């Protein structure tokens, strides 16, 4: 095990991998060898750094220089300048969005995006090599398992989790410690621990990043949970669409077995625990706990009514404790540092931190972990860098298809489980999609409902038929065929579905419609009564017009029009044929005189 003078950390998360970080690693190794630096400089593939917008991301230590948008051809320069001669390559250094500052001396923690964060669940992501158990051990890995097994009773472990105030990070927000306690209290010859890694909300990717960047944290936490509730077998149900996560998880499980951290008689305490991976069946509803367990059993992934709750009768009819990936990612730290340390963070009823996936119309797309109680405004502006191209913020969607859209006026809401619900949305798994003035809220509601209609398993009528009817009404509205009474119909359907659907998916399916109706009712009304889309988004309601006073007859628009809908002679005002117009907007982009408008 040799010491190197410099470490080149290359992000191997999904975002950076898809923008080519694997070729970067090859090129770095090649160039480093070519300069004879292979005994001095080491290249490490890490998990996600979070700032996916700037990817592929490369950090050079010990300087902590943060390079962003690195291309394969930039590698030669970083090696020959920075690694060989110690001169940082200024022009490749990350540029701050707010200030346009490019400072090679700035450390990661000083960058706005990271400055306001508090990383517990993501603490090792982007720091360690996820395929190397030794590096996890060096970051106090498996110390919590050791502490629990050798110094704590099962009741003490449960008590610690209970006292920490940790709540389910998958969306429900149920107190984790209570779940552990109920499963502990169930009497059975066999119990199970399970991990829900069937992350499905559009825009959410924190579970994926944790599995990819720090898989051992989940293994350690599940072993602790197994000890606490009395289970010897665990299952991780992970989406088959997450190949990197599955691969790193498998490697991590093998390494943990080799070190005796999984298997029989762990730390010679007589405690046995082993883990297996189950690949998801590819349906959104499989993230619902009863459906997930049916899927692990090899049955069709459909929900069943509760009770009995999994803590009483779960996998293979045995008591089962199911937690989400991010929830588990907090457990080892709680055991290690104590419940009081964890409970000191956050708000009265929501303790600790939460990871959010920032997406949509926001500058710093990526993954952020903040203390509970941080106002939305801080997340979106200070960390996220606001909306790109100077557009005006309109709403933020939280909680995925079960959540809702919150307007500008609620941006000062401190984020926690209860505040978000009171505001008309929910925490969900932590997707946060930002919309600007160009987004039509009716269309957004339609998008989420479309997702639900696709993903509804069809077992119960309210969800199968009800959401379909709601979507038909929304389709009509955005096409300009909305009728009086549509809004009332939507509301009536929503209330019925909420009250009667079988599982959480259906119960919350109308939320995107209800929340947009609550905060953006005027947009619905404009579509229905005035046949106009205030955001100029819905094509059926758009009309492009040429102002004859401004048109110079340059013919640029006519040449740009793919449908030959614009006619006119040179130096004479042109006209758009509304019937032929596809409403693509290319004429508007081409016009240099601002003569074309849409309404």
């Amino acid at each position, binding site marked *: 095990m040799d010491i190197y*003078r410099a470490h080149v950390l290359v992000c191997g998360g999904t975002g950076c991998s898809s923008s080519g970080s694997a070729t970067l690693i090859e090129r770095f190794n090649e160039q480093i060898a070519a300069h004879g630096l292979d005994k*001095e400089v080491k290249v490490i593939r890490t998990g996600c750094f979070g700032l996916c917008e700037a990817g592929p991301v490369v950090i050079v230590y010990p300087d902590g220089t943060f390079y962003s948008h690195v291309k394969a051809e930039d590698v030669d320069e970083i090696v020959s300048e920075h690694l060989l001669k110690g001169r940082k390559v200024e022009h490749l250094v990350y540029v701050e969005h707010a200030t346009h500052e490019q400072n090679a001396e700035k450390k990661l923690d000083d960058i706005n995006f990271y400055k306001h964060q508090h990383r517990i669940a993501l603490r090792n992501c982007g720091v*360690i090599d996820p395929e190397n158990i030794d590096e996890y051990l060096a970051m106090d890995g498996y110390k919590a398992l050791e502490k629990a097994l050798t110094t704590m009773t099962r009741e003490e472990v449960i008590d610690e989790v209970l006292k920490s105030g940790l709540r389910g990070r998958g969306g429900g927000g149920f107190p984790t410690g209570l779940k552990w306690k109920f499963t502990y209290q169930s009497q059975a010859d066999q119990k199970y621990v399970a991990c829900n890694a069937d992350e499905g909300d559009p825009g959410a990717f924190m579970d994926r990043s944790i599995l990819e960047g720090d898989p051992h944290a989940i293994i350690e936490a599940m072993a602790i949970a197994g000890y606490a509730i009395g289970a010897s077998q665990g299952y991780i149900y992970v989406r088959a669409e997450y190949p990197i996560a599955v691969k790193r998880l498998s490697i991590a499980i093998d390494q943990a077995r080799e070190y005796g951290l999984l298997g029989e008689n762990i730390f010679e305490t007589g405690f046995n625990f082993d883990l297996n991976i189950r690949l998801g069946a590819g349906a959104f509803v499989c993230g619902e706990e009863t459906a997930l367990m049916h899927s692990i059993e090899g049955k069709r992934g459909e929900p069943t009514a509760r009770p009995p709750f999994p803590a009483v009768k779960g996998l293979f009819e045995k008591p089962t404790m199911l937690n989400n990936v991010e929830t588990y990612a907090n457990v080892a730290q709680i055991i290690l540092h104590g419940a009081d340390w964890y409970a000191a963070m956050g708000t009265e009823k929501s303790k600790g931190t939460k990871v959010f996936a920032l997406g949509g119309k926001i500058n710093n797309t990526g993954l952020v972990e903040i203390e509970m109680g941080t106002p939305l405004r801080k997340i979106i502006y200070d960390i996220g860098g606001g909306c790109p191209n100077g557009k005006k913020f309109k709403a933020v969607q939280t909680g995925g298809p079960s959540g809702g859209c919150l307007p500008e006026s609620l941006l000062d809401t401190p984020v926690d489980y209860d505040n978000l619900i009171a505001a008309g949305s929910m925490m969900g798994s932590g997707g946060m999609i930002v919309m600007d003035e160009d987004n039509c809220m009716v269309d957004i509601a339609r998008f989420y409902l479309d997702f639900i209609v696709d993903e509804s398993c069809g077992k119960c009528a309210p969800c199968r038929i009800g959401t379909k009817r709601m979507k038909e009404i929304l389709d009509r509205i955005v096409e300009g065929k909305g009728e009086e009474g549509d809004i009332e119909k939507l509301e009536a359907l929503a209330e019925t579905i909420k009250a009667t659907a079988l599982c959480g998916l259906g119960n919350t399916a109308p939320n995107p419609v209800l929340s947009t109706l609550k905060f953006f009712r005027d947009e619905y009304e404009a579509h229905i009564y005035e046949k106009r889309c205030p955001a100029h988004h819905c094509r059926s309601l758009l009309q492009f017009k040429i102002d004859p006073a401004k048109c110079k007859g340059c013919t640029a628009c006519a040449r740009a029009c793919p449908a030959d809908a614009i006619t006119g002679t040179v130096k004479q005002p042109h006209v758009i044929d509304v019937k032929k117009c596809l409403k693509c907007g290319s004429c508007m982009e081409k016009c240099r005189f601002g003569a074309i408008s849409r309404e």
Partner: protein
Amino acid sequence: MKSLAELEAIRKATLNRINLRTEDDSEATRVVVGMATCGIAAGARPVMLSFMDEINKRQLSNVTVSQTGCIGMCRLEPMVDVIVPGKEKVTYVHVKPEMVPRIVAEHVVNGRPVAEYTIGAAENE
């Protein structure tokens, strides 16, 4: 199967290897080698490698080796700065690989600069 003691040993050894990635380097001793063209031509690379060898051999944690450019006194290259936190920077000149074990043993480990190798001694000659 690893015992608790073995796991602890792995933790320590790995931490030594990766602690240059931890952001807080205010506690670390820094060895900075001048590696501009003049430094490399005067033989700075073998000097830097011997520093790393020595640090490896002694399994020293909290020491980083980094490079810097030319500071203008090319005639004194290879030059090496050793910066112990809270102490003044010490500059060694005309450093040869065989001088490195002594610098590490006396200065980096025990906090006593090797006076005869420093820039002060060279300028007084």
